[in-house]
Protein backbone atom coordinates (compact mmCIF):
# COMPACT_ATOMS: atom_id res chain seq x y z
CA UNK A 1 0.00 0.00 0.00
CA UNK A 2 2.83 2.39 0.90
CA UNK A 3 4.19 2.18 -2.65
CA UNK A 4 0.80 2.68 -4.23
CA UNK A 5 0.37 5.81 -2.14
CA UNK A 6 3.88 7.04 -2.84
CA UNK A 7 3.44 6.61 -6.58
CA UNK A 8 0.21 8.57 -6.49
CA UNK A 9 1.86 11.26 -4.39
CA UNK A 10 4.73 11.64 -6.82
CA UNK A 11 2.17 12.34 -9.50
CA UNK A 12 0.47 14.93 -7.28
CA UNK A 13 3.87 16.40 -6.53
CA UNK A 14 4.42 16.71 -10.27
CA UNK A 15 1.33 18.89 -10.58
CA UNK A 16 2.38 20.93 -7.54
CA UNK A 17 5.86 21.46 -9.00
CA UNK A 18 4.44 22.41 -12.35
CA UNK A 19 2.17 25.00 -10.79
CA UNK A 20 5.05 26.31 -8.68
CA UNK A 21 7.43 26.59 -11.63
CA UNK A 22 4.94 28.15 -14.03
CA UNK A 23 3.89 30.71 -11.41
CA UNK A 24 7.50 31.77 -10.90
CA UNK A 25 8.27 31.73 -14.61
CA UNK A 26 5.56 34.28 -15.35
CA UNK A 27 5.22 36.26 -12.15
CA UNK A 28 8.91 37.03 -11.62
CA UNK A 29 9.14 39.14 -14.81
CA UNK A 30 5.54 40.36 -14.61
CA UNK A 31 6.14 41.54 -11.05
CA UNK A 32 8.94 43.76 -12.32
CA UNK A 33 6.57 45.30 -14.87
CA UNK A 34 4.01 45.92 -12.12
CA UNK A 35 6.75 47.46 -9.95
CA UNK A 36 7.69 49.88 -12.73
CA UNK A 37 4.00 50.70 -13.14
CA UNK A 38 3.64 51.56 -9.48
CA UNK A 39 6.70 53.82 -9.73
CA UNK A 40 5.46 55.49 -12.93
CA UNK A 41 5.99 59.24 -12.84
CA UNK A 42 3.92 59.89 -15.95
CA UNK A 43 1.82 63.00 -15.36
CA UNK A 44 -0.18 63.77 -18.51
CA UNK A 45 -1.77 66.84 -16.90
CA UNK A 46 1.54 68.36 -15.92
CA UNK A 47 0.96 71.33 -18.23
CA UNK A 48 -1.75 72.58 -15.86
CA UNK A 49 0.89 73.78 -13.43
CA UNK A 50 2.48 75.92 -16.16
CA UNK A 51 -0.64 78.05 -16.58
CA UNK A 52 0.08 81.28 -14.79
CA UNK A 53 -2.50 82.50 -12.36
CA UNK A 54 -4.20 79.10 -12.31
CA UNK A 55 -6.22 78.20 -9.21
CA UNK A 56 -4.45 76.14 -6.59
CA UNK A 57 -6.39 72.91 -7.15
CA UNK A 58 -4.91 72.75 -10.68
CA UNK A 59 -1.76 71.72 -8.91
CA UNK A 60 -3.43 68.54 -7.69
CA UNK A 61 -4.40 67.55 -11.22
CA UNK A 62 -0.93 68.40 -12.46
CA UNK A 63 0.55 65.72 -10.22
CA UNK A 64 -2.09 63.13 -11.22
CA UNK A 65 -0.29 59.89 -12.15
CA UNK A 66 -2.84 57.62 -13.88
CA UNK A 67 -0.61 54.54 -14.40
CA UNK A 68 0.54 54.53 -10.81
CA UNK A 69 -3.03 54.97 -9.60
CA UNK A 70 -4.39 52.05 -11.62
CA UNK A 71 -1.50 49.73 -10.76
CA UNK A 72 -1.65 50.61 -7.06
CA UNK A 73 -5.39 49.91 -7.08
CA UNK A 74 -4.90 46.46 -8.63
CA UNK A 75 -2.13 45.60 -6.19
CA UNK A 76 -4.33 46.71 -3.29
CA UNK A 77 -7.23 44.50 -4.42
CA UNK A 78 -5.03 41.46 -5.03
CA UNK A 79 -3.11 41.75 -1.79
CA UNK A 80 -6.25 42.64 0.11
CA UNK A 81 -8.29 39.52 -0.75
CA UNK A 82 -7.56 35.82 -0.22
CA UNK A 83 -5.89 33.92 -3.03
CA UNK A 84 -8.53 31.20 -2.61
CA UNK A 85 -11.26 33.69 -3.43
CA UNK A 86 -9.33 35.03 -6.43
CA UNK A 87 -8.89 31.50 -7.67
CA UNK A 88 -12.62 30.84 -7.56
CA UNK A 89 -13.52 34.15 -9.16
CA UNK A 90 -11.05 33.61 -11.97
CA UNK A 91 -12.21 30.04 -12.60
CA UNK A 92 -15.97 30.44 -12.18
CA UNK A 93 -16.34 34.15 -12.97
CA UNK A 94 -16.13 34.03 -16.75
CA UNK A 95 -18.62 31.16 -16.89
CA UNK A 96 -21.13 33.02 -14.72
CA UNK A 97 -20.72 36.45 -16.24
CA UNK A 98 -20.03 35.67 -19.89
CA UNK A 99 -21.87 32.37 -19.87
CA UNK A 100 -18.71 30.93 -21.36
CA UNK A 101 -15.97 28.97 -19.58
CA UNK A 102 -12.93 30.53 -21.22
CA UNK A 103 -10.59 28.10 -19.45
CA UNK A 104 -11.69 25.06 -21.40
CA UNK A 105 -13.08 21.94 -19.85
CA UNK A 106 -11.57 19.26 -17.68
CA UNK A 107 -8.30 19.06 -15.82
CA UNK A 108 -6.26 21.20 -18.17
CA UNK A 109 -8.79 24.03 -18.05
CA UNK A 110 -8.74 24.03 -14.25
CA UNK A 111 -4.99 23.94 -14.21
CA UNK A 112 -4.66 26.89 -16.60
CA UNK A 113 -7.10 28.96 -14.54
CA UNK A 114 -5.08 28.13 -11.43
CA UNK A 115 -1.82 29.24 -13.05
CA UNK A 116 -3.50 32.49 -14.16
CA UNK A 117 -4.74 33.25 -10.65
CA UNK A 118 -1.38 32.42 -9.07
CA UNK A 119 0.54 34.53 -11.59
CA UNK A 120 -1.72 37.51 -11.00
CA UNK A 121 -1.48 37.15 -7.23
CA UNK A 122 2.25 36.58 -7.01
CA UNK A 123 3.11 39.31 -9.53
CA UNK A 124 1.53 41.79 -7.16
CA UNK A 125 3.41 40.46 -4.14
CA UNK A 126 6.69 40.35 -6.04
CA UNK A 127 6.16 43.89 -7.34
CA UNK A 128 6.16 45.25 -3.82
CA UNK A 129 9.42 43.41 -3.11
CA UNK A 130 11.04 44.64 -6.32
CA UNK A 131 9.97 48.16 -5.58
CA UNK A 132 11.48 48.01 -2.12
CA UNK A 133 14.70 46.72 -3.66
CA UNK A 134 14.85 49.43 -6.29
CA UNK A 135 13.98 52.29 -3.96
CA UNK A 136 16.22 50.89 -1.25
CA UNK A 137 19.40 51.59 -3.21
CA UNK A 138 20.47 55.07 -2.07
CA UNK A 139 20.31 57.82 -4.72
CA UNK A 140 23.91 58.60 -3.86
CA UNK A 141 24.94 55.39 -5.62
CA UNK A 142 23.44 56.51 -8.90
CA UNK A 143 24.79 60.02 -8.50
CA UNK A 144 28.29 58.71 -7.78
CA UNK A 145 28.09 56.78 -11.06
CA UNK A 146 26.78 59.83 -12.90
CA UNK A 147 29.56 62.16 -11.78
CA UNK A 148 32.07 59.52 -12.88
CA UNK A 149 30.64 59.79 -16.39
CA UNK A 150 28.89 56.41 -16.51
CA UNK A 151 25.94 55.81 -18.80
CA UNK A 152 22.52 54.93 -17.45
CA UNK A 153 22.93 51.28 -18.39
CA UNK A 154 26.42 51.09 -16.88
CA UNK A 155 25.02 52.51 -13.67
CA UNK A 156 22.21 49.95 -13.65
CA UNK A 157 24.27 46.89 -14.50
CA UNK A 158 27.53 47.74 -12.75
CA UNK A 159 26.24 49.48 -9.65
CA UNK A 160 22.59 49.23 -8.69
CA UNK A 161 21.55 45.76 -9.95
CA UNK A 162 23.61 43.69 -7.52
CA UNK A 163 22.63 45.91 -4.59
CA UNK A 164 18.99 45.46 -5.55
CA UNK A 165 19.34 41.69 -5.77
CA UNK A 166 20.96 41.57 -2.36
CA UNK A 167 18.04 43.49 -0.88
CA UNK A 168 15.45 41.39 -2.68
CA UNK A 169 16.70 37.88 -1.85
CA UNK A 170 15.47 37.58 1.78
CA UNK A 171 11.88 38.81 1.22
CA UNK A 172 11.77 36.93 -2.09
CA UNK A 173 12.74 33.65 -0.45
CA UNK A 174 9.96 34.12 2.11
CA UNK A 175 7.42 34.70 -0.60
CA UNK A 176 8.60 31.76 -2.70
CA UNK A 177 8.42 29.43 0.29
CA UNK A 178 4.88 30.65 0.90
CA UNK A 179 4.11 29.84 -2.73
CA UNK A 180 5.13 26.21 -2.18
CA UNK A 181 2.40 25.85 0.41
CA UNK A 182 -0.11 28.05 -1.42
CA UNK A 183 -0.13 25.58 -4.31
CA UNK A 184 -2.40 23.44 -2.10
CA UNK A 185 -5.17 26.01 -2.63
CA UNK A 186 -5.58 24.67 -6.17
CA UNK A 187 -7.48 21.79 -4.60
CA UNK A 188 -10.46 24.14 -4.16
CA UNK A 189 -11.19 23.84 -7.89
CA UNK A 190 -10.26 20.16 -7.96
CA UNK A 191 -6.76 20.36 -9.38
CA UNK A 192 -5.01 17.11 -8.43
CA UNK A 193 -2.12 18.58 -6.51
CA UNK A 194 -0.45 16.91 -3.56
CA UNK A 195 -3.07 17.51 -0.85
CA UNK A 196 -5.91 16.43 -3.05
CA UNK A 197 -4.11 13.18 -3.86
CA UNK A 198 -3.44 12.55 -0.17
CA UNK A 199 -7.07 13.22 0.69
CA UNK A 200 -8.35 10.88 -2.01
CA UNK A 201 -7.17 7.85 -0.03
CA UNK A 202 -9.54 8.80 2.74
CA UNK A 203 -12.55 8.39 0.50
CA UNK A 204 -11.36 5.38 -1.45
CA UNK A 205 -9.58 3.35 1.25
CA UNK A 206 -10.49 5.01 4.53
CA UNK A 207 -6.85 5.88 5.19
CA UNK A 208 -5.80 9.13 6.82
CA UNK A 209 -2.04 8.67 6.94
CA UNK A 210 -1.52 9.47 3.21
CA UNK A 211 -2.83 12.98 3.89
CA UNK A 212 -0.38 13.45 6.74
CA UNK A 213 2.34 11.90 4.62
CA UNK A 214 2.05 14.82 2.10
CA UNK A 215 3.69 17.02 4.74
CA UNK A 216 6.97 15.15 4.13
CA UNK A 217 6.95 16.27 0.52
CA UNK A 218 6.36 19.93 1.37
CA UNK A 219 9.08 19.79 3.99
CA UNK A 220 11.60 18.30 1.57
CA UNK A 221 10.75 20.85 -1.09
CA UNK A 222 10.98 23.80 1.29
CA UNK A 223 14.18 22.34 2.74
CA UNK A 224 15.84 22.35 -0.67
CA UNK A 225 14.70 25.92 -1.33
CA UNK A 226 15.94 27.06 2.07
CA UNK A 227 19.37 25.64 1.32
CA UNK A 228 19.37 27.30 -2.10
CA UNK A 229 18.43 30.74 -0.77
CA UNK A 230 20.87 30.39 2.10
CA UNK A 231 23.58 29.72 -0.46
CA UNK A 232 22.63 32.81 -2.50
CA UNK A 233 22.54 34.98 0.62
CA UNK A 234 25.95 33.75 1.66
CA UNK A 235 27.29 34.43 -1.86
CA UNK A 236 26.13 38.04 -1.51
CA UNK A 237 27.25 38.53 2.06
CA UNK A 238 30.72 39.75 1.13
CA UNK A 239 29.40 43.31 0.94
CA UNK A 240 26.90 45.44 2.80
Amino acid sequence: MFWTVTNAMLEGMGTTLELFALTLLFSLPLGLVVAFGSMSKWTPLRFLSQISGAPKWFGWFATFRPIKLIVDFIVWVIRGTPLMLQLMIIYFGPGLILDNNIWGSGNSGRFIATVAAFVLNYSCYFSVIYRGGIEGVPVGQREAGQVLGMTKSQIFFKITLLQMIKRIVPPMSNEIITLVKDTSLARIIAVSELIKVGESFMKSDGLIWPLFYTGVYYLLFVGILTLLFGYIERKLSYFR
Partner: protein
Amino acid sequence: MAVLQVQNIEKHFGRVQVLKDISFDLEQGQTLAIIGSSGSGKTTLLRCLNFLETPDGGKISVHGETLFDAADPATQKEKEVRKKRLHFGMVFQSFNLFPQYTALKNVMLAPELLAKNNPDYNKKATSEELEAQARKLLQQMGLADRADHYPHQLSGGQQQRVAIARALAMKPDIMCFDEPTSALDPELTGEVLKVIRGLAEQKTTMIIVTHEMAFARDVADQVIFMDQGVIVEQGDAREVIENPKEERTRKFLSRYSGS
Protein backbone atom coordinates in the same frame (compact mmCIF):
# COMPACT_ATOMS: atom_id res chain seq x y z
CA MET B 1 42.59 82.76 -18.17
CA ALA B 2 40.47 81.20 -15.46
CA VAL B 3 39.92 77.43 -15.60
CA LEU B 4 36.36 77.81 -14.43
CA GLN B 5 33.99 80.68 -15.08
CA VAL B 6 30.60 80.65 -13.43
CA GLN B 7 28.26 83.39 -14.60
CA ASN B 8 24.94 84.43 -13.11
CA ILE B 9 23.76 80.97 -12.02
CA GLU B 10 20.15 80.83 -10.88
CA LYS B 11 18.35 77.84 -9.41
CA HIS B 12 14.82 77.37 -8.10
CA PHE B 13 13.22 74.39 -6.39
CA GLY B 14 9.56 74.94 -7.09
CA ARG B 15 8.92 78.50 -6.02
CA VAL B 16 11.94 78.74 -3.74
CA GLN B 17 14.97 80.41 -5.22
CA VAL B 18 18.02 78.59 -3.92
CA LEU B 19 20.77 80.26 -6.00
CA LYS B 20 20.65 83.89 -7.04
CA ASP B 21 23.05 85.38 -9.54
CA ILE B 22 26.09 83.31 -8.56
CA SER B 23 29.26 84.36 -10.41
CA PHE B 24 32.90 83.59 -9.77
CA ASP B 25 36.12 82.58 -11.50
CA LEU B 26 38.64 79.98 -10.45
CA GLU B 27 42.26 80.03 -11.60
CA GLN B 28 44.36 77.00 -12.45
CA GLY B 29 45.93 75.42 -9.37
CA GLN B 30 43.88 77.44 -6.92
CA THR B 31 41.71 76.22 -4.08
CA LEU B 32 38.36 77.85 -3.45
CA ALA B 33 36.55 77.31 -0.17
CA ILE B 34 32.80 77.90 0.05
CA ILE B 35 31.45 78.63 3.50
CA GLY B 36 27.99 79.55 4.71
CA SER B 37 25.25 78.41 7.01
CA SER B 38 23.00 75.42 6.46
CA GLY B 39 20.58 75.85 3.58
CA SER B 40 22.52 78.67 1.94
CA GLY B 41 22.82 76.71 -1.32
CA LYS B 42 26.41 75.42 -1.19
CA THR B 43 25.56 71.83 -2.08
CA THR B 44 23.16 72.95 -4.78
CA LEU B 45 25.93 75.02 -6.36
CA LEU B 46 28.32 72.04 -6.49
CA ARG B 47 25.54 69.85 -7.85
CA CYS B 48 24.93 72.37 -10.61
CA LEU B 49 28.61 72.29 -11.57
CA ASN B 50 28.43 68.49 -11.74
CA PHE B 51 25.20 68.51 -13.77
CA LEU B 52 23.30 66.75 -11.01
CA GLU B 53 20.98 69.75 -11.05
CA THR B 54 20.14 71.90 -14.04
CA PRO B 55 20.37 75.63 -13.33
CA ASP B 56 17.50 77.81 -14.53
CA GLY B 57 19.82 80.57 -15.62
CA GLY B 58 23.47 81.35 -16.19
CA LYS B 59 26.56 79.94 -17.84
CA ILE B 60 29.35 77.58 -16.84
CA SER B 61 32.60 77.50 -18.83
CA VAL B 62 35.76 75.48 -18.38
CA HIS B 63 38.95 76.49 -20.19
CA GLY B 64 36.86 78.96 -22.17
CA GLU B 65 34.52 76.27 -23.48
CA THR B 66 30.87 76.85 -22.59
CA LEU B 67 29.71 73.64 -20.92
CA PHE B 68 26.34 74.90 -19.87
CA ASP B 69 24.23 77.79 -21.00
CA ALA B 70 20.69 77.95 -19.67
CA ALA B 71 19.67 79.87 -22.80
CA ASP B 72 21.03 77.19 -25.15
CA PRO B 73 19.28 73.78 -24.88
CA ALA B 74 21.94 72.28 -27.16
CA THR B 75 24.33 72.39 -24.19
CA GLN B 76 22.00 70.22 -22.11
CA LYS B 77 21.83 67.00 -24.13
CA GLU B 78 22.14 63.88 -22.01
CA LYS B 79 24.97 62.37 -24.05
CA GLU B 80 27.15 65.47 -24.00
CA VAL B 81 26.40 66.16 -20.35
CA ARG B 82 28.04 62.83 -19.59
CA LYS B 83 31.29 63.95 -21.24
CA LYS B 84 31.17 67.41 -19.71
CA ARG B 85 30.84 65.99 -16.25
CA LEU B 86 34.33 64.61 -16.61
CA HIS B 87 35.73 68.13 -16.24
CA PHE B 88 34.61 67.92 -12.62
CA GLY B 89 35.33 65.40 -9.91
CA MET B 90 32.91 65.13 -7.01
CA VAL B 91 33.47 63.95 -3.46
CA PHE B 92 30.25 63.56 -1.50
CA GLN B 93 29.62 64.15 2.16
CA SER B 94 28.40 60.55 2.47
CA PHE B 95 31.26 58.99 0.41
CA ASN B 96 28.91 56.92 -1.78
CA LEU B 97 31.47 54.19 -2.44
CA PHE B 98 30.15 51.17 -4.34
CA PRO B 99 29.75 48.54 -1.59
CA GLN B 100 30.13 45.50 -3.84
CA TYR B 101 33.61 46.47 -5.04
CA THR B 102 36.96 46.61 -3.30
CA ALA B 103 38.69 49.95 -2.79
CA LEU B 104 40.83 49.24 -5.84
CA LYS B 105 37.88 48.36 -8.03
CA ASN B 106 35.98 51.45 -6.83
CA VAL B 107 38.84 53.55 -8.15
CA MET B 108 39.28 51.59 -11.39
CA LEU B 109 35.68 51.00 -12.43
CA ALA B 110 34.83 54.28 -14.15
CA PRO B 111 38.18 54.70 -15.97
CA GLU B 112 37.84 51.12 -17.21
CA LEU B 113 34.32 51.69 -18.52
CA LEU B 114 35.44 54.87 -20.21
CA ALA B 115 38.45 53.19 -21.82
CA LYS B 116 36.14 50.67 -23.49
CA ASN B 117 35.05 53.44 -25.85
CA ASN B 118 38.56 53.79 -27.22
CA PRO B 119 38.96 52.28 -30.69
CA ASP B 120 42.26 50.61 -29.73
CA TYR B 121 40.94 49.22 -26.43
CA ASN B 122 42.96 46.28 -25.19
CA LYS B 123 41.37 44.75 -22.11
CA LYS B 124 44.50 43.34 -20.56
CA ALA B 125 46.87 46.24 -21.21
CA THR B 126 44.29 48.82 -20.18
CA SER B 127 43.35 47.11 -16.98
CA GLU B 128 47.00 46.64 -16.01
CA GLU B 129 47.67 50.30 -16.65
CA LEU B 130 44.57 51.44 -14.78
CA GLU B 131 45.32 49.15 -11.88
CA ALA B 132 48.78 50.64 -11.56
CA GLN B 133 47.27 54.12 -11.62
CA ALA B 134 44.65 53.19 -9.03
CA ARG B 135 47.22 51.65 -6.69
CA LYS B 136 49.34 54.76 -6.98
CA LEU B 137 46.38 56.97 -6.08
CA LEU B 138 45.48 54.79 -3.12
CA GLN B 139 49.08 54.95 -1.98
CA GLN B 140 48.97 58.72 -2.26
CA MET B 141 45.90 58.61 -0.01
CA GLY B 142 47.82 56.48 2.50
CA LEU B 143 45.75 53.40 1.69
CA ALA B 144 48.24 51.16 -0.13
CA ASP B 145 47.45 48.28 2.25
CA ARG B 146 43.68 48.72 1.96
CA ALA B 147 43.32 48.21 -1.79
CA ASP B 148 41.60 44.84 -1.45
CA HIS B 149 39.22 45.84 1.34
CA TYR B 150 35.54 46.34 0.76
CA PRO B 151 34.02 49.67 1.85
CA HIS B 152 32.31 48.16 4.93
CA GLN B 153 35.72 46.99 6.13
CA LEU B 154 37.06 50.56 6.10
CA SER B 155 36.65 53.42 8.57
CA GLY B 156 34.77 56.53 7.46
CA GLY B 157 38.00 58.43 6.98
CA GLN B 158 39.43 55.62 4.87
CA GLN B 159 36.24 55.41 2.82
CA GLN B 160 36.36 59.12 2.12
CA ARG B 161 39.97 58.86 1.01
CA VAL B 162 39.03 56.05 -1.38
CA ALA B 163 36.28 58.33 -2.70
CA ILE B 164 38.85 61.06 -3.29
CA ALA B 165 41.09 58.60 -5.16
CA ARG B 166 38.10 57.47 -7.20
CA ALA B 167 37.36 61.05 -8.27
CA LEU B 168 41.03 61.78 -9.02
CA ALA B 169 41.27 58.68 -11.22
CA MET B 170 39.12 60.43 -13.84
CA LYS B 171 41.71 63.24 -14.00
CA PRO B 172 39.17 66.04 -13.65
CA ASP B 173 40.14 69.68 -14.24
CA ILE B 174 38.39 70.71 -11.05
CA MET B 175 37.84 68.65 -7.91
CA CYS B 176 34.71 69.43 -5.90
CA PHE B 177 34.31 68.44 -2.25
CA ASP B 178 30.99 68.77 -0.47
CA GLU B 179 31.70 68.89 3.26
CA PRO B 180 34.10 65.95 2.93
CA THR B 181 34.59 65.59 6.68
CA SER B 182 31.25 66.41 8.23
CA ALA B 183 30.10 62.78 8.31
CA LEU B 184 33.28 61.82 10.18
CA ASP B 185 34.23 61.55 13.82
CA PRO B 186 36.58 64.37 14.84
CA GLU B 187 39.55 62.01 15.12
CA LEU B 188 39.06 60.89 11.50
CA THR B 189 38.64 64.42 10.12
CA GLY B 190 42.33 65.16 10.28
CA GLU B 191 43.43 62.33 8.00
CA VAL B 192 41.06 63.46 5.26
CA LEU B 193 41.98 67.14 5.60
CA LYS B 194 45.62 66.10 5.37
CA VAL B 195 45.22 64.49 1.96
CA ILE B 196 43.22 67.46 0.70
CA ARG B 197 45.97 69.73 1.94
CA GLY B 198 48.42 67.53 0.02
CA LEU B 199 46.36 68.00 -3.14
CA ALA B 200 46.40 71.77 -2.63
CA GLU B 201 50.17 71.68 -2.34
CA GLN B 202 50.33 69.83 -5.67
CA LYS B 203 48.29 72.65 -7.18
CA THR B 204 45.13 70.69 -7.81
CA THR B 205 42.30 73.03 -8.79
CA MET B 206 39.64 72.53 -6.13
CA ILE B 207 36.35 73.79 -4.74
CA ILE B 208 35.71 72.77 -1.15
CA VAL B 209 32.50 73.33 0.74
CA THR B 210 33.50 73.20 4.38
CA HIS B 211 32.67 74.16 7.91
CA GLU B 212 36.34 73.87 8.95
CA MET B 213 37.22 77.56 9.08
CA ALA B 214 40.84 77.12 10.10
CA PHE B 215 41.31 74.70 7.23
CA ALA B 216 39.68 77.10 4.75
CA ARG B 217 41.89 79.94 5.97
CA ASP B 218 45.12 77.96 5.79
CA VAL B 219 44.60 75.84 2.69
CA ALA B 220 42.31 77.82 0.39
CA ASP B 221 43.43 80.69 -1.79
CA GLN B 222 39.96 82.15 -2.20
CA VAL B 223 36.87 82.04 -0.03
CA ILE B 224 33.24 82.59 -0.94
CA PHE B 225 30.73 83.24 1.82
CA MET B 226 27.16 82.38 0.83
CA ASP B 227 23.95 83.24 2.58
CA GLN B 228 20.41 82.53 1.39
CA GLY B 229 21.50 81.73 -2.14
CA VAL B 230 23.68 84.75 -2.79
CA ILE B 231 27.41 85.34 -2.59
CA VAL B 232 27.75 87.86 0.20
CA GLU B 233 31.50 88.18 0.18
CA GLN B 234 34.39 86.72 -1.77
CA GLY B 235 38.09 87.27 -1.78
CA ASP B 236 41.45 86.17 -0.46
CA ALA B 237 40.90 83.37 2.05
CA ARG B 238 42.88 84.79 4.95
CA GLU B 239 41.44 88.24 4.36
CA VAL B 240 37.79 87.14 4.32
CA ILE B 241 38.09 84.88 7.36
CA GLU B 242 40.22 87.17 9.50
CA ASN B 243 38.92 90.52 8.28
CA PRO B 244 35.41 90.11 6.93
CA LYS B 245 33.99 93.27 5.41
CA GLU B 246 30.32 92.36 5.48
CA GLU B 247 28.26 92.31 8.63
CA ARG B 248 26.62 88.99 7.68
CA THR B 249 30.03 87.33 7.20
CA ARG B 250 31.21 88.63 10.54
CA LYS B 251 28.12 87.30 12.26
CA PHE B 252 28.52 83.89 10.64
CA LEU B 253 32.22 83.66 11.47
CA SER B 254 31.72 84.70 15.08
CA ARG B 255 30.01 81.35 15.60
CA TYR B 256 33.27 79.63 14.73
CA SER B 257 35.60 81.87 16.69
CA GLY B 258 38.13 79.95 18.66
CA SER B 259 38.60 77.32 15.95
